[in-house]
């Protein structure tokens, strides 16, 4: 049976992959993504738990709370990303927004 057009195209793009990159194609697998997620979760809790074994000395008292940086990193990152939704609604415009006005961009 002859190959369909999309599969030929896929084969062509696969042929063009850099030889070095072929060694790292596993990073695309969904299972790897899931394992990475689990690893990061365990590592976050593990690093936070280290504070129970060793008291961190900080200039700021409340930074000595157990897992302070882990909680703050997680919360700060999530805040920044989630704020993107309302912010985009507020200030996002079509790509040609300035172009329409002034022949720009």
């Amino acid at each position: 049976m002859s190959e369909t057009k999309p599969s030929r195209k896929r084969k062509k793009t696969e042929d063009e992959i850099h030889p070095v990159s072929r060694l790292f194609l596993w990073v695309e697998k969904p299972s790897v993504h899931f394992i990475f997620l689990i690893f990061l979760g365990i590592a976050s809790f593990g690093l936070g738990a280290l504070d129970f074994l060793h008291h961190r000395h900080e200039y700021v008292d409340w930074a000595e709370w157990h897992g302070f940086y882990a909680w703050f990193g997680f919360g700060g990152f999530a805040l920044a990303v989630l704020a993107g939704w309302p912010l985009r609604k507020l200030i996002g415009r079509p790509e040609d927004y300035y172009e329409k006005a002034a022949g720009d961009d």
Partner: protein
Amino acid sequence: MIDALPLLSPAWPIILGGLLCGLIPWYGLRKAVSLAMPLIAMAFWFSVDQPGTFGALEVAGFTFETFRYDGLSRVWGLIFIIATFLNSIYGLHDRDRLQDATALIYAGAGLGAVFAGDLLSLFFFWELTAISSVFLIWASRNPAAFRAGLRYLAIHVLSGVLLLAGSIIYATNTGSWAFNDIGLDAPGGVLIFLAFGIKCAFPLLHNWLQDAYPKSTVVGAVVLSAFTTKLAVYALARGFAGTEMLIWIGAIMTAFPVFFAVIENDLRKVLAYSLNNQLGFMVVGIGVGTELALNGAAAHAFVHIIYKALLFMSMGAVLYRVGTVKASALGGLFKSMPYSAFFCIIGAASISAFPLMSGFVAKSLTLAATAQEGHWITWLVLVFASAGVLEHSGIKIPYFAFFSHDSGKRVKEAPWNMLLAMGIAAFLCVFIGVFPGYLYAILPFEMDYQPYTFDHVVGQMQLLIAAMFAFSLLMRFGLYPAERPSVNLDTDWFYRRMGDGLFKWAWAMGGRLSASIQNRFGVAGRALTQRLFNLFSPAGAMSRDVPSGLLAIWTSVLLGLVMVIAYVAG
């Protein structure tokens, strides 16, 4: 051999190189000059072993101090020279003569400003950076870049005008043109502060950066990322160290770009926002003003120039090969550009301040100094901004360009010279991270600081790994805003849209007024309106097109004001 060199500012060979490049039509010779001149400048830098002021020029009874070598200028001078050399390597494939010339003149002007010992020399080089760098934007040779360049030039000339006005007032009242500690309370101090603030992209004055840099050429953006803003940081450190207002300005600078960068689709614009964020850390350090904090600002500027250049280089390589850096059109490029992806990840890890990377050993100085001095709210903002850095530069840049969904684009790897420049920059990121002592040794003040403590490493890893965990979770549950072709409004809206709208409204009202005058006063009215048209119309004497004309008029008005001030003050 180095001892035999004259004690001249390293700026001169680089500026001379730029002028030569403008004259040399042969590509190979031009590139040889652009590589050789930074090396000669480096030899000039090494030839000085004691702090002092050298290279004084007497012009019309005024002494221009062109080479003030001390703890502060030394570190900035060195990194500017290194950046110039890296830029020259990165641009080896480029055959644009104008760009070769202006890139070197711009870098030399930045160096000249850093080594300037008096305010007039500073002003001269300050303006030269503005005028030479705009050609790196115009080198894109498209209408959007041309207009952005005009806006950029107007804003930077305004900065120069403010600097000159402030300097004249300062010198007239104090009797000294020396560029040392100025402070806000000094006569003219506020004007000089504003001049530095514009170039440093203070909040609300920042948008020239996101407007212009992403419209520059592949090489131009890399060159631009190194000098202008870091020169402003240097000038603030020299003139306004310990100014408390800077702590708050810097804190805002670190935080607000984080939100803009999340929803930005143009990855070079993301890097421009990231630049703003990084400058904030340095500005906070200058505001805190202790020796540790100033060392922090200097160290941060040093490492930042390298890893930011590296990130701009990697995005430049993507732009060069793919033709776009819109995140919505990219993804999966690690399959065709693995080395670029690797170097980009090194830059991303450095700016995120992972242990063993240069950002880790530099940023911590500022954070420690801020906490030491009891600025807890600012410290908290800086910690938040550190998580933000990981978001926009640590993850977003490499992830959406090289990984994410496969866009199916298969291109060649970057040219060898780009890879070489990226490789050297990546090596420096790791080298400084592993051996921070070499960086600490050239900072303005001696210090006893150990970045690799258990507390610091664990705290930083907690922050970064938990933030990466948050990213993975948000992606898994579809909560990360998808990359979309769009633009986001920022302060440039006021002059690109509202100002334009106001102008059109005023134009329409003017038309009605003109018609009314003609109806009422007949021939005399027509003559008057014709004269006004000839003067102010877009094709008239005052301006040829709307934005450049208006900005040029305002700049002229400000220049006129400076002359009035100088006359009154004199």
